[in-house]
């Protein structure tokens, strides 16, 4: 009986990790290619701050996280569509300010530290069927939106100047992409935690960019690497009794470092050159 319950917990956790990693790889590919990796981190931070403020004020933390993340997504998309160069400053400020807000909210009572920890690292082994259903719904909606708007997302990522000059409303895709990231991070934060959610958005796609020569290639490789990170991290965490989210995050980071060292785009063989003491990066 205990074995059955354990196997159900593990299966649910594995499904949640895979859903989160694959959907993030898809959205993350566009975010990373647009050099918006900091946006992933900033949205994750404001999600966390929103959840903490909502928790101490007795509101549903997911609502707090969603309202904060959508506000930041709107501000970033607006700033980027105006092209006045403040978007980077907004992201930097958002990370700092949201950290301060979260710290302030947490300082109000010591009992919130356990809650804060659960939002930071998630509770993938404790994921409920309802949470999996929510993650599955968010993943399906994301997939449908990306499939419908794929060419616009692709061209506004590859060459926004020409795309706009030839009639594509690139600012619409800015908003779509940041809203997708905002909603996805809120849903994933509850399951896999803020830290892993932002790793999932950035690391597999950044690794894939080093290895692939087309947008479709980046998405496919990112999905494969996200899958490998989730499976390998999950197995290692179970074998050595380590926190699942943190282990998956570290596996994803190791894959990223390896992709940098072995990237054919960096005339490859950086690792080999390093071993020969020729790499002077």
């Amino acid at each position: 009986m205990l074995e059955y319950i354990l196997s159900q917990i593990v299966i649910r956790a594995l499904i949640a990790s895979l859903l989160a990693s694959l959907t993030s790889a898809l959205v993350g590919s566009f975010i990373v290619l647009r050099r918006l990796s900091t946006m992933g981190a900033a949205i994750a931070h404001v999600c966390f701050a929103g959840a903490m403020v909502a928790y101490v004020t007795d509101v549903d933390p997911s609502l707090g996280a969603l309202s904060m993340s959508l506000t930041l997504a709107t501000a970033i998309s607006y700033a980027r569509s105006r092209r006045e160069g403040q978007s980077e400053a907004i992201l930097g400020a958002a990370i700092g300010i949201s950290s301060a807000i979260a710290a302030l909210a947490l300082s109000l009572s010591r009992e919130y530290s356990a809650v804060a920890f659960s939002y930071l690292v998630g509770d993938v082994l404790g994921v409920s069927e309802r949470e999996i259903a929510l993650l599955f719904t968010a993943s399906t909606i994301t997939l449908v939106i990306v499939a419908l708007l794929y060419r616009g997302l692709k061209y506004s990522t590859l060459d926004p100047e020409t795309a706009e000059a030839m009639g594509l409303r690139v600012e619409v895709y800015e908003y779509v992409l940041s809203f997708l990231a905002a909603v996805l991070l809120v849903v994933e934060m509850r399951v896999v935690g803020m830290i892993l959610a932002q790793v999932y958005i950035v690391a597999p796609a950044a690794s894939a960019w080093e290895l692939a020569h087309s947008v479709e290639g980046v998405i496919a490789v990112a999905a494969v690497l996200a899958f490998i990170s989730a499976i390998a991290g999950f197995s290692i965490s179970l074998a050595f009794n380590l926190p699942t989210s943190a282990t998956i995050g570290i596996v994803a980071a190791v894959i990223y470092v390896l992709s940098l060292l072995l990237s054919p785009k960096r005339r490859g063989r950086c690792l080999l050159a390093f071993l020969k003491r020729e790499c002077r990066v």
Partner: protein
Amino acid sequence: MSSCKPLIAFSHVDVAYAHELALIDVTFTIEEPAFTVIVGPNGAGKTTLLRAALGLVKPVRGRIIVLGIDVEKDPWRVRRLVGYVPQRERLDQTMPALVRDVVLMGVSLRKPLTRRLTRRDYEKAEQALKRVGLEELWDEPFTHLSGGQQQRVLIARALAAEPKLLLLDEPLSGVDPQSQEAIVKLLSEMVKGGVGVVMVTHDLNPLIGYVDYLMLLNKRVIAFGRPSKLLEPEVLSKTYGRRVHVFRVGSTCFVLSGDSHA
């Protein structure tokens, strides 16, 4: 193209960036499909003029008509009819794109983005790439190409969109002489096929003999007309603000400035 619908008409256009005027009282009209080249020194407003024609920057004064459409009133309609070739140096050379992705973008942007690309769309893109002589590079990563090849692929993308008017921003910059010649000949053929071409360039020499209209721009239109009348040292020197020499060898003419940018 009907004569009552000018290809491009600027009427007393001023464009400003942060209160500094980039274009001042620019007025000109190109009636029929022609090969028009805009030259001028750095900061003369050449790129701004193209961007204004597409409605990407709004004039603080004046009126712009492109293909018979008031750009301020309906910039999106203008953009959907015009082909645009950006400065190659401004493209992100780390972007993961195959040559076919770049050329298919021209076809894709001309149809509803939710509709699937058909076999006919792929053929259009392949033909456009063939016209620039690079059909064998269809599956190559764009960033693996030389500067000249990249520029030709960017022109193929614009061709694939079947534009009525083609705007090109420095398409000869950083391009080898053979590619320069191939590009200029192709553009000249397009003009003969009824497409208006407006090109911004630093380097006038590869174009002499092909150009129908020449504009000398230095924030203001210094001169606009047939090149035979404008390729005079006095007019060019006024545009660049320094001495420019014009050498004629037989029917060929060469322009040389202090920094060889004319």
